[in-house]
């Protein structure tokens, strides 16, 4: 173990750390992904699959159900991700304050939604937003509404309910990532800023946010991926309805694979459409994040 070239040693060490995870991912993800891609080149009922080349992909462009699902998914994405990330940062900073009492309790409560099971909260949300549910009752008593609103049977409002549900559910989850990252910021930086007389706002925007950039990028990308694959809420709260007003791409894949007579080939093609979208969006987000990183240096 003596005079191994330190450069070589470093290289070997580096690969040693990543080799097992890489192989595992190759086995459990990439191998099935390749199989899935092969599947996307065939079509047919259940086991009666035959090769169709790129026909499935062509079909995507003229499939009204897919296009509608795509629109819905993108809409949720554009509204959802910024709202969720901002709220998560907001709560994490709020609940990181040393002077705040009962921090542990409040943090647990904010995190509660992501722990509350899907079964429970989907029933609750359906109750809350039903015709004689609490939300309507409150809005009626405040005279904001004259008549109870049919939240879940209206194409527009059903989307709003989904957005509220997702935000409610995932803010606490994302908050964790920011909370933990905030612990890694050296308090001496803040003390130095205090000496300079910086206000809370300045400290936040000039110190906290830049230092949190890697985690912000992380949550933005993972929230994007999560929202693009959105399934639980539309499936359980609105069943993709009314009609297909809240059907997402993942739900369409589920329907194609299990609800209808399965066409696994086409379902695989739709999945790859998601992959393509995610790749494009992630590259965009990384470019934007990376550029800022260079700027702050």
């Amino acid at each position, binding site marked *: 173990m003596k005079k191994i070239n330190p450069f070589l040693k470093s290289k070997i060490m580096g690969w*040693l750390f990543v080799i*097992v995870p890489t192989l595992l991912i190759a086995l459990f993800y990439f191998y099935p992904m390749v199989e899935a891609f092969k599947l996307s080149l065939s079509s047919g*009922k*259940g*086991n*009666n699959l035959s090769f169709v080349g790129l026909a499935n992909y062509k079909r995507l462009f003229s*499939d*009204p*159900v897919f296009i509608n699902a795509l629109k819905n998914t993108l809409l949720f994405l554009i509204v959802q991700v910024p709202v969720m990330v901002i709220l998560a940062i907001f709560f994490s900073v709020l609940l990181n304050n040393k002077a705040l009492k009962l921090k542990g309790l409040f943090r647990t409560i904010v995190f509660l939604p992501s722990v509350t099971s899907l079964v429970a909260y989907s*029933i609750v949300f*359906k*109750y809350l937003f*039903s*015709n004689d549910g609490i939300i309507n009752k409150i809005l009626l008593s405040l005279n904001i509404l004259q008549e109870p609103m*049919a939240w*879940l*049977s209206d*194409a527009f409002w059903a989307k709003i309910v989904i957005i509220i549900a997702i935000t409610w559910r995932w803010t606490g989850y994302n908050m964790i990532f920011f909370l933990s990252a905030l612990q890694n910021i050296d308090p001496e930086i803040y003390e130095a800023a205090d000496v300079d007389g910086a206000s809370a706002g300045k400290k936040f925007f000039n110190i906290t946010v830049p230092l949190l950039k890697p985690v912000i990028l992380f949550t933005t990308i993972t929230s994007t991926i999560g929202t693009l694959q959105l399934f639980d809420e539309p499936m359980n*709260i*609105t*069943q*993709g*309805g*009314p*009609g*297909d007003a809240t059907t997402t791409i993942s739900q369409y894949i589920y*329907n194609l*694979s*299990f*609800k*209808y*007579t*399965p066409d*696994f080939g086409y379902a695989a093609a739709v999945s790859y459409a998601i992959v393509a979208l995610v790749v494009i969006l992630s590259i965009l987000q990384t470019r934007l994040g990376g550029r800022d990183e260079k700027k702050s240096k």
Partner: protein
Amino acid sequence: MKKRTVGALLAGALFSSLLLTACGSSSNGGGSSTSDSGATELTVWAWDANYNVRAFEEAEKVYDKEVPDTVDLKIVENAQDDIIQKLNTSLSSGVTDGLPNIVLIEDYRAKSFLEAYPDSFFPLTDVIKADDFTDYKVEATSVDGENYAVPFDTSSTGLYVRTDILEEAGYTVDDLKDITWEKYIEIGKAVSEKTGKKLISLDVNDLGLVRSMINSTGSWYTGEDGKTPTLADNEALKVAFKDVKAMYDAKLVDDNSDWSQWLSDFNNGVVWSVPTGNWITPSITAQEDQAGKWAVVSFPRQELDGSVNASNLGGASIYVLNVDGKEAAAEFLKDTFGSSTDLYKTLVENIGAIGSYIPATEAGVYDTEAEYFGGQTIYKDFAEWSTQIPAVNYGENTYAIEDILIKAMQNYLKGDDLDKVLENAQKEAENQLK
């Protein structure tokens, strides 16, 4: 020391995980295995602990009396949707490891599975006597003349009504016997005026009512070949849509968006009638303070020739998978669900399940008087109605087409022209389902 530590740690973790799995039971080989007493172990996949699972448990008891120690049932319970997912995944992946011997499948999905996975199901044509079972169930579970299932619960529909609310509005139960949907709506309007109660609770994302309406006229979303969408020139479908819209227009509908909300609507007396399958009985009787205030009449029919006062909504049948143990499974089914009147007696008494086995009905198995319904022999009524249900080919695309029709219904309710809406649906269905 360090490299070895890492290696040791990783190896340790992987090793102990393997060790743990060794402690757990090893996987079941596909199909059956023989247990110690020499009995064949058969795996059954079913949902609903109080209904289907109990039914199989009772069946095993009946079988054990006849031929003890021949069969050992392992019932693996999963949610219905989960079973569909598991079955599709297993069958399409070609992995027979872990496939069950016997599986329960909803009738609307039957053709879909049978066509998607030919060769995966074991024909039961020689195992059961098709004539002993109600027509519409046999039709649903056969392909090209071969029977693939033992028909199980009949989901024959009926109209559950609150007799006390009817009285308050000046009607009697007899006024609702063997009526048409138009009469039903008419009475609904009158009752609503006098008592303020709504008629029916509906979910916009579920066209079960439409399905049961057209079933009673011998019509379906697809034609006799089970494949061609028949949405555009379908009189039964048009009338069904019109009737549903009439209910909404007269403000007789309470919206629900969840099974529990639907139950709550009639348990709480928000609505006074429930036209649906007989499996709703336990949910109705759960509301103890309404005992004696409900009755069941025949399902309304459509104002069309050939429409009858009987229909189906749901229901499942029992299939045998083409894996080891199929003969034992077939034998088991033959002697229980396939022919045992005693079993059907137990089923209706303990579970409230009404089978599709005609000899059982003829033997008077369903003649019990239901106290909750004022002594009405509801099970007998349902069993009799089930024999009138028109046999219809449910085809492979029921759920896919229904999703299209849900949109059509939405547009129609918003004011679009009926013919146009159905024509668009027809086109979309033709495009999607090639």
